[in-house]
């Protein structure tokens, strides 16, 4: 009995107390978004009533968001852009990481230096020349423009995360396949890459998060309302002059993050596993 009690106390101290603190710190803004999106304007602007409670909840902001703006279309655009640009980044990431991690070739040092250097290039420096390229390709106001430019931010990170993972995979299986006469490409596709799925998941999740979050390029390349992504669309239509449509903005933030959160809850275990064998040993 006493032991159990002490165990409980120790456990609260070590687990529940800090966990509770972090839950509040991490999630309070979401609670805030949720109640803000449910409050009628009269409550939103009242400084007298207790702010953590909604007295007269209303779905008005959600209804307006879905009926007056193209929110669902923006969500679709965001997902499409994020998925495709993540896929491109992973493919390019593999193409860079596989040789760098598994082979020796002249110029490897140069390539890995160049990839590392691209992390550091400040984004605000790039967007004007990028806009020029996009326009010359005739891609202004198309989702392709951001699908093409996001990987510039994502490829270096993907390559890096994957390199870490690739280095940790033992060589024996590959060597055996090579001795059996498989080509390098076959070895890579049939033997090696299937071993690296956790690595792809962690790099993919990371890239996906950055892609669906991006603001600057989306702002510059996408002006028409039907090609916008959630961050740019919401800001463009729900911030009018010096007045913010707070309720709808918060509704957009919530609705926008829920699908991603669900995807994450499925993958989080793999994400951890992917980093475990990869990043750690890099």
């Amino acid at each position, binding site marked *: 009995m006493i032991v159990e009690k002490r165990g409980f106390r120790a456990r609260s101290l070590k687990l529940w107390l800090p966990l509770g603190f*972090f839950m509040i710190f*991490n999630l309070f803004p979401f609670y805030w978004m949720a109640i803000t999106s449910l409050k009628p304007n009269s409550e939103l602007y009242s400084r007298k009533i207790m702010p953590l409670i909604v007295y007269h909840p209303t779905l008005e902001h959600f209804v307006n968001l879905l009926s007056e703006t193209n929110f669902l279309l923006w969500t679709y655009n965001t997902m499409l852009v994020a998925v495709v640009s993540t896929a491109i980044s992973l493919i390019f990431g593999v193409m860079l990481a596989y040789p760098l991690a598994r082979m020796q070739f002249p110029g490897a040092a140069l390539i890995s230096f160049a990839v590392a250097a691209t992390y550091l290039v*400040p984004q605000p*420096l790039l967007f004007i020349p990028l806009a020029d390229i996009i326009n010359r390709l005739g891609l202004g106001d198309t989702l392709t423009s951001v699908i093409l430019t996001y990987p510039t931010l994502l490829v270096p990170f993907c390559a890096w995360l994957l390199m870490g993972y690739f280095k940790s995979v033992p060589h024996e299986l590959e060597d055996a396949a090579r001795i059996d006469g498989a080509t390098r490409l076959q070895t890579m596709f049939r033997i090696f890459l299937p071993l690296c799925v956790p690595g792809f998941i962690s790099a993919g999740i990371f890239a996906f998060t950055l892609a669906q979050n991006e603001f600057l390029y989306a702002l510059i390349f996408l002006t028409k309302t039907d090609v916008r992504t959630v961050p740019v669309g919401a800001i463009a239509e729900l911030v009018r002059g010096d007045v913010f449509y707070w309720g709808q903005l918060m509704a957009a933030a919530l609705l926008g993050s829920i699908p991603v959160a669900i995807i994450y809850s499925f993958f*989080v275990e793999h994400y*951890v596993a992917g980093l475990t064998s990869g990043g750690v040993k890099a």
Partner: protein
Amino acid sequence: MASAHTQALPRPTLRRRPAFSLRRWTEREGVFSWLMVIPPALFLMALVGYPFVYGIWLSLLDRPVAKPGVFIGLDNFITALHDPVFWRVAQNTFVYTFAATALKMAGGLALALVMNQEFRFKNLIRAVMLLPFIVPTVLSTIAWMWILDPSFSVINWFLVHWGITKPGPSWLGNPGWAMFSLIMVNTWRGLPFYAITLLAGLQTISPELYEAATIDGASTFARFRYVTVPLLKPVIFIVTMFSVIFTFSDFQLVYVLTRGGPANATHLFATYAFDVAMSGGQFGLGASIALSMLPPLALLIAGMAWYMRSEKT
């Protein structure tokens, strides 16, 4: 690892070479590697390399927006270096980067240690904890804008309600508090990424090491200090590097919350460069300011890498 790899490789080329075969050629390690590397390298060269060189060129011009430029050498950099705001911005950026990174590291490690225990709904809680990292920054920042707004701040509502302060602090109005608030919001956003990555690292540490340490009589703290921390170092290095890069060049958060105010107290390199180039229409000067963030960032990263390497040996 590399040495084991070369030993294990069979060397078919030692045999007498038949006439040229494309297949054999592409099977050569160097050729295969380059064939793989070239497409992504070209992609990056076109969409990062070219704009970057263009940016460097811009920084050497007196180049108002939509007007032809005049080559002026390093004048823009000299101008920037004589600009008191530039130094203020540099100082802000360093304070912001260091404070936010340190907080994220400490908080992230703590959260990772907490989440590394067994408890109910573990996966759900882990996923939920990641939310701040997932939600589009622009939108979550707008929520913070409301939370930090002095007249509506829930924080202040409680501070005043419980009689702790009369008017609550002006979170974004007072220069010191404004920087503090930005650091907190950045920490809030980045901490989950730290935590989840460090958690991954923690799970690679084999329990036997702890058991051995316990048998040797190590205290909880000693186990943390001598087992956990050294083994986590590589992963700490990686997240810290990511975080330093992203924090140093942060744009969205400041752009939405304060636009660099009050009186430049929260202007960072990225926002200042953007303001000078876009609102001021001075592309050359803006490019030079944006470019100035590169050397310190590179030094920072190189320093960290060097530190890691020297620790390893």
